[in-house]
Each structure stands twice: as structure tokens, then as C-alpha cells.
């Protein structure tokens, strides 16, 4: 069951403050890195919702993000819709696609679910890659950013765009928390723990899986639409299964089923990638060894490890503090 602990709140505040400070102070390159982190964080947030709380380990979330990006590009450049409408449209399209994938894949478990999602992701990738309508291998360019000049923001400025993405990531996080805490989210967690029992209790399991998968897809679609605006150019590579694989790696490195952990993972992953790339071109070797080490250590990623080590201690100290202040109140009352 999803819960906020003192440690999670602390980590969230640190993340938000860090990202905001970076958005205000960083130069052009720093802002690019920040935006990259924010968009990856949004994708892994969507993935952790289904993988960490529903046991639906998806290898198509990268492709869903790609669907969101392409939907936004088509709706703005080909259908001529206003960017805010296109943003909503791309979220809806991605959510619908994800719902269908979730509904069809609901019967599959474990490695079969992974394969099913992989199949759907690759199907989208191959189709986009071949179809001239989507620009094929060349991709599509000239994608406009949303115009927020009404409220005095010029999103063509990287700083404003980074802040915009940060605000939307905050909104997406809030939505994810609300979903996981809703009846639907609780039932999904029940399904992850014991699908047979939930069904025997009268739950239409596939609907719950499909619904949450669809909602998760909407967040992935938002991330995609923002990614399209960020680079203003998209190519089929966005949908390749390795993107989904990388997202899964980030979720695992950060801490599956903690929601905060994967976002920390996203920050660590992007920063590490840029740092390592400065030293060596063998970034994949570093990630590979790191992934093996984390999984073999049996810790639940970086944040899971922190929680196991310090989470309980922090809770105890906090409850001690409140008890002490209660005690003081009592003594002053007396």
C-alpha cells in the first residue's frame, strides 16, 4: 500500500528544492540536463505506478512515451491544433493505447507480461519506423512549444521550459499518489499481492489492471508530449524497446514501488551518464555492472536501501520528538 513516510517527504522536498534551485540558477547546458531528468522522472513515475504497485513490469512505457510525442507532433504540425489542445489530445491518445495494452495483457503474468508489452511496444516502433505519414526513419521536426505568454512565460526560453516541466512533474506526482491511494489503486495493489483472491472476492481484475495501466499511460503520454516540445524534433528511436528497458533500469536502481525512489534514480542516472560520458565512452558497461550489483545486493534500489537503513530510525526520532513535545505540554499544563 502506498504511504508517505517522513523519509519520503524529506526526499521529495530535497528533490523539489534541488530541481527548483537548478532551474533558477543553471546555465543552458545545466537546464538541458535538468529537463532531461524531469522528463525521465515523469516516465519512470508512470512505470513505477504499474510495476511497483501492480506487478505489471512493462517493457512498452518508452514506446508509450513515443506515442505521446508522435501524437503531439501530428496534432500540432499536421492537424493544426493549438498546442494546449494537442497536449490534451496526446495524453488521451496515449492513455487509450495503454488501456488497450493493459486490457489485452491482463491475463499474462511474469515473463509473459513483459513479452506482451514488448510486442506492443515493438509493433508501434516498427509501424512508425516504416510509415511515411510519421516521417519514417527521418522523424518529424518543427514541433511547437506551448504558448504561455498570457501568464508571462516564454516557453521557448529553456529556463521557463524547465520550470514548466518541473510544475507538470509535480502535478503528475500528485496524480500518481491520488491514483495509488484511490480505491482503484488499492485494489491494484491487492491484485499484485494475490490476484486469485481478489478475483474470488468479486473484483473484475482485468478492468482494474487496464484502468491503472491506462492512467499510467496518460502520464507517459504527457512525458512524451513534453519531450517532443523539448527537442522540437522526434524520431522513431524514441519508441525503441531499449528506452523502455532503460526506464525499467532506472526504476530498479531507484527503488521499485517507492515512487520517490525512481525519481531519485532518474536524477542519478542522467547525471551519472553525463559524468561518465566525459571520462569514457563505455557508459553501458558502468550501467550494466551497477545494475547487476544493485540486483545482487538484494536491496530495493538506492532509495529502498536508504529506507531500510535509516527510514525506521528517522520515524523513531520523529515520534520521540513529538512525544517529548507532548510531554513538555503536559508538564507546562501542570
Amino acid at each position, binding site marked *: 500500500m502506498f504511504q508517505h513516510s517522513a523519509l519520503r517527504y524529506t526526499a521529495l522536498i530535497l528533490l523539489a528544492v534541488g530541481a527548483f534551485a537548478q532551474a533558477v540558477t543553471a546555465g543552458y547546458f545545466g537546464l538541458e540536463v535538468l529537463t532531461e531528468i524531469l522528463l525521465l522522472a515523469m516516465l519512470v513515475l508512470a512505470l513505477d505506478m504499474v510495476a511497483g504497485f501492480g506487478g505489471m513490469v512493462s517493457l512498452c512505457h518508452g514506446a508509450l512515451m513515443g506515442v505521446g510525442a508522435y501524437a503531439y507532433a501530428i496534432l500540432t504540425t499536421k492537424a493544426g491544433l493549438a498546442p494546449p489542445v494537442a497536449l490534451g489530445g496526446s495524453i488521451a491518445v496515449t492513455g487509450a493505447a495503454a488501456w488497450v495494452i493493459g486490457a489485452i495483457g491482463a491475463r499474462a503474468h511474469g515473463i509473459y507480461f513483459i513479452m506482451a508489452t514488448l510486442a506492443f511496444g515493438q509493433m508501434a516502433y516498427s509501424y512508425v519506423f516504416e510509415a511515411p505519414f510519421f516521417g519514417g526513419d527521418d522523424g518529424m521536426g518543427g514541433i511547437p512549444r506551448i504558448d504561455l505568454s498570457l501568464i508571462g512565460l516564454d516557453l521557448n526560453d529553456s529556463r521557463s521550459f524547465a520550470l514548466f516541466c518541473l510544475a507538470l512533474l509535480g502535478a503528475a506526482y500528485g496524480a500518481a499518489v491520488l491514483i495509488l491511494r484511490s*480505491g482503484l489503486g488499492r485494489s491494484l495493489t491487492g491484485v499484485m499481492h*494475490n490476484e486469485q483472491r481478489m478475483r474470488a472476492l468479486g473484483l473484475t481484475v482485468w478492468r*482494474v489492471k487496464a484502468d491503472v495501466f491506462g492512467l499510467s499511460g496518460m502520464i507517459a503520454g504527457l512525458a512524451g508530449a513534453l519531450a517532443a516540445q523539448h527537442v522540437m524534433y522526434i524520431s522513431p528511436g524514441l519508441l525503441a524497446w531499449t528506452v523502455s528497458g532503460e526506464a525499467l533500469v532506472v526504476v530498479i536502481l531507484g527503488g521499485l514501488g517507492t515512487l520517490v525512489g525512481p525519481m531519485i534514480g532518474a536524477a542519478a542516472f542522467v547525471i551519472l551518464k553525463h559524468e561518465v560520458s566525459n571520462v569514457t565512452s563505455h557508459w553501458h558497461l558502468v550501467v550494466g555492472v551497477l545494475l547487476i550489483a544493485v540486483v545482487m545486493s538484494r536491496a530495493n534500489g538506492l532509495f529502498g536501501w536508504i529506507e531500510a537503513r535509516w527510514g525506521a530510525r528517522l520515524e523513531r526520532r520523529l515520534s520521540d520528538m513529538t512525544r517529548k513535545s507532548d510531554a513538555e505540554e503536559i508538564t507546562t499544563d501542570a
Partner: protein
Amino acid sequence: MLETRNLDKRFGAVHVTRNVSLKLERGERRVILGPNGAGKTTLFNLLVGELTPSSGSVLLAGEDVTALPVAKRARRGLSRSYQKNTLFDGLTVEENLGLAAAIHTGAGTRLWGDSLASPEVREIVAEVAEQVRLMPYLHAKVSEVSYGVRRQLEVGVALATRPLVLLMDEPTSGVGPEMAKGFHELLNDLPRDLTLLIIEHDMDLAFDVADTITVLNYGEVVFDGLPEEARGSKLLKEIYLGSWEDA
């Protein structure tokens, strides 16, 4: 309340349920007895829809539910507990009950609002916790409570959907005789209008609870009647002394 008509199930050449016709009245408490391999659990799986019968039908509250999937039968008021604990292991006792109750109230599929915090769900959880004596353990995780408490929770989760008919597959399986006795008191305290179908291993304990007794042997109903009749039945003695004692 619950009825089967000529229920039959074959797995290939193996005939596990033979022409079973049962009829439970509202509020009736029936115990199913029978040696290992008599097809008791298979019968349960046919009743709740985890297996489809080769022929015959299942009726719930007068309506034919044979074609309905597990979840739909459950929503019509058929609930079951398992012989082997089938719980939400990583969650607390309260959450276990709450998930089940939320399915019953409909809060479990709503996107707005925390199902576990909804007043209706909380009310059911408190009531069921009282019924199956789980009040002291509500905030403990399933993994932290004793096996006996888990057996109580197993029944509690099934009860939290507010069923019309409750099927219990050996609720006292694996607990000591003392606890089993307590368990039977607990069952006797359940609301009288709840229809109960219980698989039980121990004959004496079964007589504590049963209004009526059905005995299965090789998938077939070999006895159907009152406990007093069962006690004196020659056939029953034969089955139990003949095949059960060596098992």
C-alpha cells in the same frame, strides 16, 4: 440459497465429481465430510466457478450461475475461504479486510477517494474484525501474526464481502484441537441468516456446527442428512474407518 443439479466433472479419464445434487436453504449450515481425495475441494471450485463443470448446473438464490465467471458469482453473494491461506501477505490485517470490503461496497474500483478510508468500508472491517476476533491484530502485517490468526483472517476476508453464502474449505486445517474448538464457537456466533457450507476433516468438530451433513466419497454424495443420522450411519463408519484411517 445454493443449489447444484447433477454436477459432474471429469479430468480426462478421471471422474472427480459424480452427479452431485445439493440444496442449501437460507441460513442452513452444512458440513461436507469425506476422506482425502473425495472431491470436496473440487466441488468448491465448481461452486465458485474456478472450475467449469463437465455437465450440470449451479444455482445461487434461484438463478443459474453456471456460466458466470468467479468474480461475478462473488458479487452475487458467493464467497469462499481457502484450505491454504490465500491472503495479501505484505499487507496489514486491516488492509486485508478493507480490500475485500471495498470490492463489496464498490469503493474498490473508484478513482476518487481512498477505499480503505471510506466510512462504509471501515464499518464492515470493524464488524468483521469483531466477528472473527481480529480486533487486537488489525495493524499487524499478515507475516507478523500467528498461523491461527491467519486462519481467522482467511475466513474474515471471505466474510468482508458480506456474502449470502460462505464456503469454507477446512477453516481449522492445521490448527490444534483447542483452537479448532474456539473456531467452531466463532462460526456458531456468525449471523443466523448466513448460509454456510463447510468442508471439515474432524467429524466430532463438524457436529458442533452442522445443521445438516453431506458425505462425499469418490466424488459422489453417499450420505445426505441430519447429524444424528450420520452419527449412527454404518456407511459413514465404513468410509471413515475403512479408507480414512489408513490414509
